């Protein structure tokens, strides 16, 4: 009788251990599931967002100083490039193209900092579009497309 009781208690104890193990496994598998599937978004999104912010701020600051239209409409490319170089962080490279309102590129020398290879090899290229309505009294819009990458 005693033997039978002891063996019943023993098997109950074993069951508890098995249940505890099963419960642990369930919780662990839930956490593992989250760890595998809740991966952070790729850094590409964050990286371009940050570069876009830099690019826009740079163009906006130059525009606020009333220099942007002067550079663009007076074809002062050397000073424009210099202004951009000193305004962006040292590890950021850029390439600027200017279009008219019908998206025809305006003839201008390369407004670039960093080699072309940096732009082709980089995974995160940010692009900022900025519109300038004209200069002095003349309405003649220009679209500035500034591409940025981190070196």
């Amino acid at each position: 009788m005693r033997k039978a009781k002891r063996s019943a208690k023993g098997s109950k104890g074993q069951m508890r251990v098995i249940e505890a193990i099963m419960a642990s496994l369930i919780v662990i598998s839930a956490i593992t599931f989250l760890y595998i599937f809740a991966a952070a978004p790729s850094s590409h999104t964050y990286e371009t967002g940050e570069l876009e912010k830099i690019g826009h701020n740079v163009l906006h600051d130059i525009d606020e100083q009333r220099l942007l239209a002067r550079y663009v409409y007076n074809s002062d490319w050397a000073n424009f490039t210099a202004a951009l170089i000193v305004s962006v962080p040292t590890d950021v490279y850029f390439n600027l193209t200017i279009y008219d309102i019908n998206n025809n590129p305006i003839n201008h020398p390369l407004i670039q900092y960093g080699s072309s290879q940096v732009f082709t090899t980089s995974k995160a290229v940010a692009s900022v579009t900025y519109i300038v309505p004209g200069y002095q009294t003349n309405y003649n819009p220009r679209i500035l497309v500034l591409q940025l990458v981190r070196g």
Partner: protein
Amino acid sequence: MKVFRERKGQFIVIAALLLSIMIVSVSMVIYGTVTYFRQERWEEYLTIVDSVKTGSFHLLEMSLSKYSQTQTLNQTILRDNLNQWVRDVRKAYPGFGVDLSYSLETGAHLAYGMTPNYNMGLNRTWDKNPSYSTANTTFSINIASVGLTGYNFSAHAFLKMNIADALWHVGQGQSGWVGVRVIIEAEGPTPVTNLRTANFVLFQVGGVNQTFTLYRYYESQGHPVKQNPTPPALNAFVYELRYSASSKPDFVNVIITVKDSRGVQVRGAVNNLAVIDY
């Protein structure tokens, strides 16, 4: 009793299962909330709004500049430019659904201490003292792709000239210099402090063009020669247009045209301006 004890063990498994479901679902909700705001390209939309806003301000200044520089009043210049601007903004950001609309101010409104009577967003009140040129428009931006509607802002451009007084600087014998002092303000109102001689495109005294030397300073001392009554201090940034005269005139008739760095122009005139000893 036995049955109850056996169910206790199952309860642990069921509790663990429920706990797991809760962990997974709560985490998913939090993850979705966090990543939505980070993955959405808010930065791009903000740069569009900012770029269009800055461009609209410049366009208003350009239009006022043209309006104030032409002899014959072109009252539709702002409306024409804005119509083109609305079309071109749409073209510049294809795929975003950018829709810019505007409303031109009309009628008399208080602006920086003056009450300009706007006609299609523009007004120039010249040949008075003070004189001013001003433009006023309200804009609204919608970006359909992100569901942004009704982002409103108003843009003002303003240039005011006040011919404050005329001073007599004693020279040798009867001769000396007459200094006509003007105060120039832009929207805000903020004092305009960056003007040079070339910005004063016309300076006439008694209907005759005068060559002058430009002095600029902040006047807070008041008049050095105590008179009765003593003119009060201007407490403003002043431009003094000084020209030579063979003798001290009691009064002068002055016309001054000034053009600021934006190209906005204003012409002020005053008759019988008393020349006071300095």
